[in-house]
């Protein structure tokens, strides 16, 4: 796992030189190859990478060929750190073939997701290699939601469970996710839109995490605007928590 690195503008960071597609680029030490490529306008398809999160390399779409010394390997660019003097190829025939294979295997997992479909047609994949999964929940197990919950929110509400084909993203013990605060970050970050969050009256439901949360109503206009769990979470986690009365009114009435 490569941690998220965003201190590119920090002048104290050591700069290194590497080659991507026979062109020389400068990069900050600690950046991944994918990050350097994207920063310089080189498109590499990716699904499980997010710049604010650590890289896991689970979607396998960002494959590139890296030559270090005399050795050439095909690897995921999101987990490969940029190093002095390495040569990276992002668009060779072998890579295209490998990416197509990955996409053919991803497609049956989420045949209805618009983003996956668009990316598949971009890569030239029309037919999935396997038939659709019998119990299809559109999840490609990229792990973005798990990482976002851990790193951006810090709630640690969801986790991976099972191994191999039985691997799923679920709340602990497949029961109601008690740490979930209903902030919606997982919904926002999901590439296949398989997590659905719904507000019904004074309740917020996230069925995938088996979670139902109570919403707090504004004292002035009476409309629900935040979950009680999120207020508690902010009060306990924040360095300088806002006073209790701050959450009495919604942002429109404050």
């Amino acid at each position, binding site marked *: 796992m490569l941690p998220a690195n*965003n201190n590119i503008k920090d002048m104290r960071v050591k700069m290194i030189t590497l080659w991507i597609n026979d062109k020389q680029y400068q990069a900050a030490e600690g950046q991944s190859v994918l990050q350097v490529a994207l*920063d310089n*306008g080189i*498109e590499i398809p990716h699904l499980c990478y*997010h*710049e*604010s999160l650590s890289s896991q390399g689970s979607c396998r779409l960002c494959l590139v060929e890296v030559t270090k010394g005399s050795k050439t390997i095909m690897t995921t660019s999101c987990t490969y750190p940029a190093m002095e003097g390495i040569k990276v190829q992002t668009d060779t025939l072998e890579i295209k073939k490998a990416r197509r294979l990955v996409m053919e295997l991803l497609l049956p997992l989420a045949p209805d997701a618009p983003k996956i479909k*668009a990316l598949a047609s971009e890569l030239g994949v029309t037919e999935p290699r396997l038939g659709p999964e019998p119990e299809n929940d559109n999840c490609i197990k990229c792990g973005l939601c798990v990482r*976002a919950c851990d790193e*951006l*929110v810090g709630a640690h509400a969801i986790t991976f469970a099972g191994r191999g084909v039985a691997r799923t993203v679920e709340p602990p013990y497949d029961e109601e996710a008690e740490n979930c605060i209903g*902030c*919606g*970050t997982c*919904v*926002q*970050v999901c590439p296949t839109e398989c997590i659905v*969050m719904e507000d019904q009256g004074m309740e917020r439901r996230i069925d995938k995490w088996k979670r139902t949360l109570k919403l707090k109503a504004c004292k002035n*206009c009476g*409309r629900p*605007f*935040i979950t009680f769990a*999120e207020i508690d979470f*902010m009060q306990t986690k924040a360095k300088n928590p806002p006073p209790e009365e701050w959450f009495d009114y*919604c*942002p*429109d009435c*404050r």
Partner: protein
Amino acid sequence: MHSTSVYAVKTLPRKEYFASGHRACPGCGEALAVRLVQKVLGRNVVVAAATGCMEIVSSPFPQTSWEVPWIHVAFENAAAVAGGVEKGLEVLKRKGKIKEQKISVVAMAGDGGTADIGLQALSGAMERGHDMLFVCYDNEAYMNTGVQRSSSTPFGALTTTSPVGTQQKGQLTHKKNMAEIAVAHGIPYVATACPSYPLDLAAKVQKGMDADGPAYIHILSVCPSGWGISGDATIKLGRLAVQSGAFPLYEVENGKYKITVDVEELLPLEYYFKPQRRFRHLSKEMTGQIEENVRQKWQELKKRSEGD
């Protein structure tokens, strides 16, 4: 996604393509909107910007706030230039002069450059079906030259050319519904957005960029100087405009209406009008009349979004 969560917005891109240090007024809603739009558009983009506030504040010679290719064009032809750029890129790709890649072409203009002066060029570009995105930053008057009325100014608003006196009480006509005009062209994607709802705005820009053909996004940019509010009330005013029904947020995808920020019960329009200097002269009856009009339009929109 329009929850008030502070965590979900962290998923927006970190890289800034609209540099700070520009000369917009403190609390400018338009600069905020441009920043969010640029974040989503990324670096593979060509921007054609019409004359207006944003051109003035972001490009004082010899500096610029734009970290992407940016062309300043005359007031009336932002859409025409963007259309030309789109066709030009197509030719360059066909001839092999540049690599085959996705380059978005975006035209930006204020409400004057869209609804008044630039309407002809915009209509032409939408009719010809260029694969481009037109973003209108609507601050409801010609703010750059000193608050003159435009066709986008709402009914009753005070501007320097729609004064309040014995003969006339502010703007005499209703706001031109630009989004409906864009829908009437039968283009694949039309939306209204507001920087007070950043995730909603980001999703809409992404959809507009991905749409195959012309897309139009109408963004309400709260203007503290022109509307007579304090600079820290920008976000709040944007939210109130949406929650009171004065500026409903919806999208039209291939003719299918969808309200993206649904409001169960509209707030009284007074909440939105009261902090603004430009509506201070309105009497209770006049506000009531405008509110009736707003609610009627909201009901029509609701009916359309539920219709199919």
